[in-house]
């Protein structure tokens, strides 16, 4: 064990953690918006809209995240026509390709989590609101959404942790996130065990924080 290497690589890896956190927060933010939108579409009675939303979540939950990143980064990059459009300004950057892939992926899972949360809301609660003369819009925003968010917290907490670990795939499209920098250090020192232990420790610490924040929120918003 080369403890000196572990100590000297720690600040470099910590610096790279900023990139990981940026990727994570951006994709969770956009993913939550997309997830909410598609959860609502899933609850729509019109079969075409419903199937469209189902198709999206089916495709992105049914294929590996690595494959999705490769298709968006290397795949779309090979389409000559695309390179002449304004889209290329975004797709040219590995950073945005990674965020697009992560967003679409987490959006699919989030839509499923929220959909099931909406569906578990007892009809009695909505009927109670209606009997008080509250409009459908207000029932949705003030009653259904808060209950759905509370219901989905445990599952969504898991999704955040999975996504946090998923960001390590950003290193496959040249980004210097936590895993990317770890690989870079290994490419000059040839000592994978030491460096990956430190990187793994940082990931574990992030999981620890996320886990506890979710636990706190669950307690705070519990119905009891």
């Amino acid at each position, binding site marked *: 064990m080369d403890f000196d290497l572990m100590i000297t690589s720690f600040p470099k890896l910590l610096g790279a953690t900023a990139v990981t956190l940026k990727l994570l927060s951006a994709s969770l933010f956009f993913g939550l918006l997309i997830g909410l939108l598609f959860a609502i579409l899933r609850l729509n009675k019109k079969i075409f809209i419903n199937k469209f939303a189902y198709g999206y979540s089916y495709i992105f939950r049914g294929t590996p995240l690595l494959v999705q990143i490769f298709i968006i980064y290397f795949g779309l*990059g090979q389409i000559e026509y695309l390179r002449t459009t304004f889209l290329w300004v975004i797709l*040219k950057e*590995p950073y945005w390709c990674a965020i697009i892939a992560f967003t679409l992926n987490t959006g699919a899972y989030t839509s499923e989590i929220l959909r099931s949360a909406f569906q578990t809301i007892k009809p009695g609660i909505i009927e109670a609101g209606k009997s008080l003369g509250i409009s459908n819009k207000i029932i949705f925003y003030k009653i259904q959404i808060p209950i759905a968010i509370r219901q989905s917290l445990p599952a969504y907490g898991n999704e955040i942790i999975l996504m946090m670990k998923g960001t390590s795939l950003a290193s496959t499209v040249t980004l210097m996130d936590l895993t990317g920098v770890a*690989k870079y250090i290994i490419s*000059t020192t040839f000592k994978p065990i030491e460096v990956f232990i430190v990187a793994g420790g940082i990931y574990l610490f992030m999981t620890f924080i996320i886990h506890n924040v979710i636990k706190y929120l669950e307690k705070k918003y519990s119905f009891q």
Partner: protein
Amino acid sequence: MNIFKKTILTVLASLFIIGNVSAEKIKIGTEGAYPPWNSKDASGNLIGFEVELAQELCTIMKYECTIVEQDWDGMIPALVMRKFDAIMAGMSITAERQKTITFSQGYADEVASLAVMKGSSLEGIETPEGINLSLGGSDVKKALKTLTGALAGKTVCTQTGTIHQNFLESGDVGSVNVRTYKTQDEVNLDLTSGRCDVALAAAVAFTDYADKSGKPVVLVGPTFSGGAFGNGVGVGIRQASDSAIGKRDAKILKDFNKAINKARKQGIISKLAIKHFGFDASM
């Protein structure tokens, strides 16, 4: 009767001896993604210069060799962790790598070059045809200065953990915006997509790609050798130690050195180099 017994005993004894002197069994690691040095055919079999050379060397050494595939970025750690006993993966002999492993004598050498897509603004840069960084001198200095100017603000792509990356980060061409990839294939993809303004690798890696893909990839600037580019490509082997297993590593190194000498004298290396590179890259 006595003679009959003796004959049987002799035959049995000889069988026993032959059985005991069974060939040394080793595994050789290669990347399988760096043509023409080593690559894979459509059905996934390892092919290329080093795959054929490894077979020739093993025949000379009377070793039983298995060639195994290993990603480039884990090549040296995998050797150290005994997943295989030797590396033949277009790996140049450099001081940095020699801190961790040892190398046989070089068996082939081949220059590095920058490459761009046809029509790039870099196409016209005026430099000597080739520069040797170990020699230095005013020509080399002037060429490096020209390159520093030409590469400023450009995204330069190369494979992770290579001599090419070392060179780009050495400061010889100023502080360039380096982007690193897991394989040379990915570098080629992003050079053609336009995400990379320019790429650096073995010159043959680009010409081979241009030939096979039909993409207008062209070499620019000087060819590079010496300095950060190392001292030719050799067989990577674990550093010897006093343990029994360490002594075996020392023997493997010695045998490879002898076999390379022999293969060189018999013209085997030249022949294979011409077959795969189109010119004699042997050394």
